[in-house]
C-alpha cells in the first residue's frame, strides 16, 4: 500500500511522543484499542485548570503507520485547544488531513476515541478534585 506524504512524515517524525504522569490531576489519559486487534493508542492531555486550555499532549501508539500518524496528528491539534473545543475533533477530519484510504479509517476512529477517553478521564478527575477541595 502506498502511504500519503503526511502519513510518512508523521511516521518518520512523530510529534509529541511520550508519557505524562497519570496521577497528575491536570493530566487526562485515554488508552484505546487492544493488542490482539493490532492497535493500541495512549493519548494524554495536560490541561490548565484555570483556562481549560490543553497545554500539552503526548501519545504512544502500537499500530500501523496510519495509526501512528493519526495519533501524532491528534496531539498536534489538541495543543492550544480548549477542552470542549477538542471534543469537536472528528475522525473524518483526520481522514481528510492524512488522506487515509478506506481500510485505514478505523485508525482515525481510534484516534477520536482516544481523544474522547483522555478528556473524559481529565473531567472525571477534575470533578473528584473539586469535590475533595470543597
Amino acid at each position, binding site marked *: 500500500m502506498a*502511504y500519503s506524504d503526511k502519513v510518512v512524515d508523521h511516521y518518520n517524525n512523530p510529534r509529541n511522543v511520550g508519557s505524562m504522569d497519570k496521577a497528575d490531576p491536570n493530566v487526562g489519559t485515554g488508552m484505546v*484499542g*487492544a*493488542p490482539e486487534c493490532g492497535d*493500541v493508542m495512549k493519548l494524554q492531555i495536560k490541561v490548565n485548570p484555570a483556562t481549560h486550555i490543553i497545554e500539552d499532549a503526548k501519545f*504512544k*501508539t502500537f*499500530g*500501523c503507520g496510519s495509526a501512528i500518524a493519526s495519533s501524532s496528528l491528534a496531539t498536534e491539534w489538541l495543543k492550544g485547544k480548549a477542552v470542549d473545543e477538542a471534543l469537536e475533533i472528528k475522525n473524518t477530519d483526520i481522514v481528510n488531513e492524512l488522506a487515509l484510504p478506506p481500510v485505514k479509517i478505523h485508525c482515525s476512529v*481510534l484516534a477520536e476515541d482516544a481523544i474522547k477517553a483522555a478528556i473524559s478521564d481529565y473531567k472525571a478527575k477534575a470533578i473528584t478534585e473539586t469535590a475533595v477541595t470543597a
Partner: protein
Amino acid sequence: MKLPIYLDNHATTPLDPRVLDAMMPYFTEHFGNAASRNHAFGWAAEEAVEKSRKQIASLIGANSKEIIFTSGATESNNLAIKGVAQMYAEKGNHIITAATEHKAVLDTCKHLEKEGIRITYLPVMGDGRVDLDMLREAITDKTILVSIMYANNEMGVIQPVAEIGKICKEKGVLFHCDAVQAVGKIPVNVITDGIDIMSITAHKLYGPKGVGALYVRRRNPRVQLTAQMDGGGHERGMRSGTLNVAGIVGLGAACEIAEKEMAQEIARASALRDRLRAKLEAGLEETYINGSLEHRLPHNLNMSFAYVEGESLLMGINDIAVSSGSACTSATLEPSYVLKALGLGDDLAHTSIRFGIGRFNTEEEIDYTADKMIQVVNKLRELSPLWEMFKDGVDLSKVQWTAH
C-alpha cells in the same frame, strides 16, 4: 549493495538467468505446439517438454511419465483435490487436511464441502507440525485423500511427510502433498516420502511464473484424476490446454539447477538465516521464533518482535522486502491464520515478520537487514504504549482492553 533488498523468497523467487537463457529460444525460433505431431516445429517443442519432464522427475525421484504440467500451484492443488474427490466419489467422501495449509488447498476443500464432501481440518501442534496420532485417528473407511503440505509458506515448518505417507499407505488412502515451498530447496522424494500426488510451481524455485506441475503416481497405486477443464485431452487426459513450452522449459531448467546445487544452497541459506537470527536476537530482547526451528526450511525465519506492530515495522524497513503476519498487511484484515493455528495469541501474529532468504542474497544484505531491523524495532518500541507497560512490569494479559 543494491537497494531494495529482496528477502521475500517464499512469495516468489527471481528468475535465475540460466533459466531465462534456456527458455529464450522457445519464445522465438522454437515456437511450435508440442501437440503438433506431424512437423519439425512440433517435434522440437515436444522434445523440450519431455526433457523438462525428465528434469523434474529426476529432482523428485519420479518417472517422467508421472509429471503433468499445469499453470502453477493453485491449479495443481485444485486438480489434485477436486480430481480425486470426483474420481473416487464411489469409494468415499472424506478428505483430511490441516489448518495451516495454503489457501489454494483450504479454499478448494471449502468448495468441496459445499458439494457434500466431508473435510477434516487437523489442528497443528505448537511447533506447527501435525499430530500423527490425530491423523491416524481421523482416517475412516470413507477417507479418500489426505492433503498435507511439505513445508509451510509462512513459518517454513516441514511436516513429517514420510510418516504421513506411511500412514496413508497403511490405511489405503491417497496422499497429496503441496510441496511448492520444499521442491528444489530440500530433498523431496516421492518414493521414500510415500507421496501419491504432489504440487510444484516454477516461480518458487527460480523459474518463471505461470507454470507448475503435478506429480501423479502411475503405479502402486495408479492414481487417476478427473480433469477439471475440458479440451484436447493433453497430459494423459488430466489437463487439457496447449502446453506453455517456454515456461515448461524454464521449470525443467530450474529443477536441474536446484538438483545440482542443492547441497551448497542449503548450507549457504541456513548460514545466512542463522546469521540473521543471531544478530536479531543479540540486538533485541523479546523476540520469538514462530514454529519449529528443528523442522524448518533452511532459508526461512519467522520471528515476532513483541510490542511492535508488523505493518509499522515494514514501513520503517521499506528498503527491505519481507512480509508480515499482521492483519493490517492482509487483504482480509485478519492476522495470519497460520500463526494463529500455532496457538500464538493474535498479538504475536500482529508483530511477526517472515524473512525468506534466496539464492542471490548476500551476507552484506543480511547484515544491513539485521541492523535496520534492530534500529526500527527500537524506534517503534519507544513509541509503543505496550512496550512501556511491559517495561513497567504490567502484565498485559490482565489489562482490560477496549476492543473495537
